[in-house]
């Protein structure tokens, strides 16, 4: 048991705990649960309280919609041998796992050919031997485990990437090379395989990784009884402490209608002084799981109604502050007096009254009238007019079907002459509908404002948003060639005036 030893050990401990939890043998008091033993999560360098691991696994099963038994098989595709296998028998009660059976399948079992026939043969074999009905099989290549354990994998890039990004790359590679097969297909895995087809060369995610590193804020996902905080390892520039553990667990003591407010206050008193972070977010884990499963289960290419539905869900989430999410420190924009002053200046902003139903329909209309059904657009990221990177995105309907990175030779082309650049791109890539140019610094500052700077207590910092918007008038920062009608209006009116007009469309008119 070389590959699956850690996993089987983990499942065994959780099944024991689950049985005793279900029968009531465990004391459910806060002190007892806090003092339970810590177990290590397989393939991650992290140790977790047994109770929290139990709850986390339950959430993972709900995300994957796994309510039936499944068989995990480590299969060598070249030698055609089953190296290891595990049968996990789930239970209907609160104890998640009923039984863990090791090596239920022989080495010589044939897994070649049509996957549905393979599934039926495995199912028959296990039914005859163990009287257990298997409803899903997962076939994994042993190379994946070698890549995870070998920290020098991905060579030069390994030093730049965090542990999370490394795992993501390994997953993408596995889906691309068909080294991870499930039947019936897991929606999560099918979504990732679709992503792989879109991102032809997914190593260029590392370009945007630098952007996200500096914008990372600690996130706590909370449930009824417990919470988990995800933090970046190391020292954050604004914090005083060195963060050793990426994950921290805790238990919610007060169960009240206003538990949000109590919980946030508690957390703020404990952690904000310790870490001195600029902002920290709190999200409802159940909503996140629902939304991600909706995204994974949707068929591609997305239809109009499905895209609108997902967008409306997301906007509804943004609207429901103090219900589904919260942030510390409290943003000043939720203060009525501040909103009154902003209103006197001509901007109507009320994030609690975001009209999610109209923004989605207006956005759909904007997409349909400015982007043709199958269009190819080039996105350039620049810095002070000089190009850094570029992507060619192919849109089909309401979803992206391809993203290709522009070659480095092209970045030496003179970008001042748009016409020649356009003809050159058409000769290289075929017909192109438009070129969108964005300044990387402006992008970073916009994201920073939305995530971090908006949550200040200093109202003068909100003015920085105005200056940011004004900068979009500059062609070096934002440009669209050839300009569609929407962009022509934007240029004529100016960014601030256009934003003021848009404000009336973003929020509900009736506030009470």
């Amino acid at each position, binding site marked *: 048991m070389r590959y699956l030893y850690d996993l089987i050990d983990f499942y065994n401990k959780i099944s024991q705990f689950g049985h005793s939890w279900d029968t009531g043998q465990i004391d459910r008091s806060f002190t007892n649960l806090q003092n339970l033993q810590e177990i290590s999560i397989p393939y991650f360098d992290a140790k977790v309280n047994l109770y929290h691991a139990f709850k986390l696994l339950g959430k993972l099963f709900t995300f994957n919609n796994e309510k039936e038994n499944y068989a995990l098989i480590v299969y060598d595709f070249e030698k055609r041998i089953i190296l290891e296998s595990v049968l996990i028998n789930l239970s209907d009660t609160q104890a998640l796992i009923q039984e863990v059976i090791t090596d239920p399948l022989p080495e010589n079992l044939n897994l070649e050919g049509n996957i549905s026939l393979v599934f039926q043969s495995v199912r028959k074999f296990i039914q005859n031997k163990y009287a257990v009905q298997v409803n899903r099989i997962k076939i994994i290549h042993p190379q994946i485990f070698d890549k995870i354990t070998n920290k020098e994998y991905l060579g030069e890039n390994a030093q730049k990437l965090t542990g999370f990004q490394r795992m993501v790359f390994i997953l993408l590679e596995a889906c691309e090379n068909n080294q991870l097969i499930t039947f019936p297909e897991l929606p999560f895995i099918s979504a990732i395989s679709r992503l792989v087809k879109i991102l032809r060369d997914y190593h260029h995610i590392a370009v945007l990784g630098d952007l996200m590193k500096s914008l990372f804020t600690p996130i706590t996902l909370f449930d009824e009884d417990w919470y988990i905080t995800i933090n970046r390892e190391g020292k954050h520039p604004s914090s005083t402490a060195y963060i050793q553990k990426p994950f921290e667990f805790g238990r919610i003591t007060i169960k009240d209608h206003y538990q949000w407010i109590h919980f946030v206050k508690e957390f703020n008193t404990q952690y904000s002084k310790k870490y001195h972070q600029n902002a920290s977010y709190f999200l409802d884990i159940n909503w996140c799981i629902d939304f991600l499963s909706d995204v994974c289960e949707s068929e591609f290419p997305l239809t*109009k109604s499905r895209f609108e539905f997902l967008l409306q869900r997301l906007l509804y989430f943004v609207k429901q502050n103090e219900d589904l999410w919260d942030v510390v420190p409290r943003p000043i924009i939720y203060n009525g007096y501040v909103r009154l002053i902003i209103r006197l200046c001509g901007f109507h902003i009320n994030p609690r009254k975001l009209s999610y139903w*109209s923004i989605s329909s*207006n956005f759909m209309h904007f997409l349909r009238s400015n982007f043709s*059904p199958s269009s190819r657009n080039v996105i350039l990221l620049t810095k002070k007019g000089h190009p850094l990177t570029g992507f060619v995105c192919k849109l089909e*309907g309401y979803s992206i079907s391809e993203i290709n990175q522009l070659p480095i030779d092209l970045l030496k082309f003179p970008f001042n002459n748009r*016409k020649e650049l356009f003809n050159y791109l058409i000769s290289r890539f075929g*017909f192109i*509908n438009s070129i969108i140019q964005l300044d990387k610094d402006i992008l970073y500052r916009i994201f920073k404002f939305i995530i971090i700077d908006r949550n200040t207590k200093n109202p003068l910092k909100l003015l920085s948003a105005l200056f940011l918007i004004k900068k979009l008038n500059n062609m070096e920062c934002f440009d669209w060639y050839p300009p569609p009608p929407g962009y022509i209006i934007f240029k004529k*009116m100016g960014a601030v005036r256009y934003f003021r*007009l848009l404000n009336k469309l973003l929020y509900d008119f009736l506030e009470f």
Partner: protein
Amino acid sequence: MRSKNYITIHPDTQKSIQLLLDSCRDTIIEKTSVVIQIDLSFPYVSPVTTNPEILYYVIEHLEKMGVKEITVIGGTLPSVNSIKVWEMLGFDVYISQKFPNVRFIPVEGNLTKKTIYEIDIGQIKFPKIVEDSVLFISIINPKISAISDIHLSIENSMSLVEDYNSLFENQINDGEYCEKNLYLEKYKKCAIKIHQIRPPDLVLYDFSSVLSKAGPLMYSDSIILHSNCLMASENSIIGDYIALKMLGKNPDDNLIIKALKNADYSLISQGVLNEAEVYIMENFENKAQFNKITSWLTDVPNDFDRKSSFWKRKGLKENNHLPIIDGIEPFIDLFDVFPQKTEISKGLICSGCKQHATELLLLLKTAMQKDQEVIPSFSFLLGKNPQEPKNEYCMVFGDCAIQTTKDRKFRKKIVQRLAISERDPDLERAKLKIRLQKRLVDLRSHEEFINYEITEDRIKAKAIKKLTRKIKRTEYINEYRLKIHEILSTYQQNRVKKNLQHQKFISNKNILEIPGCPPFYFHFLKNVIKLFRKRWVPGLARSKIFFELCLNQKFPIDPAQNLNTETEMQK
């Protein structure tokens, strides 16, 4: 009349266009100048306008085949500036940079004289460059329309005449225009006659994106259907016939094809259809689509003298079967567009008003998606003698509705509370009577009380003011009470009748009149904003800015167009 039609289904548009143009080499070869017609109806991307990618590849391949002079002409909607649309959609960048010899010409045309029933071809100025062209190619996007089910090449030729909408307008105020639905007859005649001036030599049908349910612009209700199909036809009429079959429609139900089959024109007959040749690609990757096409095509022996075996020849069947593009819905009904906020009351309408009214409502619905929470519900009146509206806010659409609703009740608003100076004189008179009778009872005898007549002179004389003595007699008081009760009850019964005659009215200013027969809705957006007040309709105000960019002129500013009711009321 032999005609060849080629159908391709391929994900690469460049390849499919090369195949189609190579197969139509006989029509293109040895022709040095070409005129291409495209659709520039409004600055929205395909399927409202032609896909620039297709035009790009067509021009590229024509230049390779030896064509030297290429001109592009774009048909637009009335009052839309085609040059602005050409620039806003980026055609300037796509085409004139790489192909500097290609020139773009906007639509030119003038209407000098109009008649009701007949239109002489000499009175319509068709673009001369198209009339005299050596080779005329048109690129068409099938779109849904309210009048003819699907807008194809025969109707597309109308867009080459500037302001073609005025051809169907009733400018002589003929009373039978609505009852006989003359708009529809004029439309059919115009479409066929203009098409016959210069029918295109080659028609390219772009089925990659098809607009259904609501058109011809992009509305919130419109549905876009996708496919990889392109078709080329050497005869536009038969091409339209086949295109309708591909979209799952029965061509015999189409208005224009019915007219073409009549004895007036007799351009389509069974003999003509039998001679139609349809060629489809030999190697189809998608078997399902191949089966769909072949369901309405018959096998024909391979007796064509073409050297390449890429194409497989077929013939047309009579009945329809599976369409290539599924899911085309019919044009949305007028009552289903905006039911949450509008109450539509229609009388006798013709197809012109119906078409323009549905398009106006669709436009309002897309622009006012956010504004719906605030604007009041309004009534929409159209046609001859529409029913009474229930809402205060009204839009009266068309000359028929305006003329037949001039003296209607909804034009006036009843005022419920009157000022002190305008109080009901009968009520005051009754109160005076009661006051006088009280004093009479106190002062006079019973007989004098019964016989005493209260006249106006006596009231005016105020003779009773000087009487101050009181007499308390319970009998008189009882009779007095009964009499007061009689007076008041008769007064209340008469009040309802008198109220209607003597009640105060003011003109209802919340009415918008949209004149025209039929009216073209682009010009009236500003007035709709005035009706609902600007701060309530930010979405519509934003779309108005967008419309002003692409129209020839700004919206008419004269507000007198809408306030005709007040001047008539004053008269």
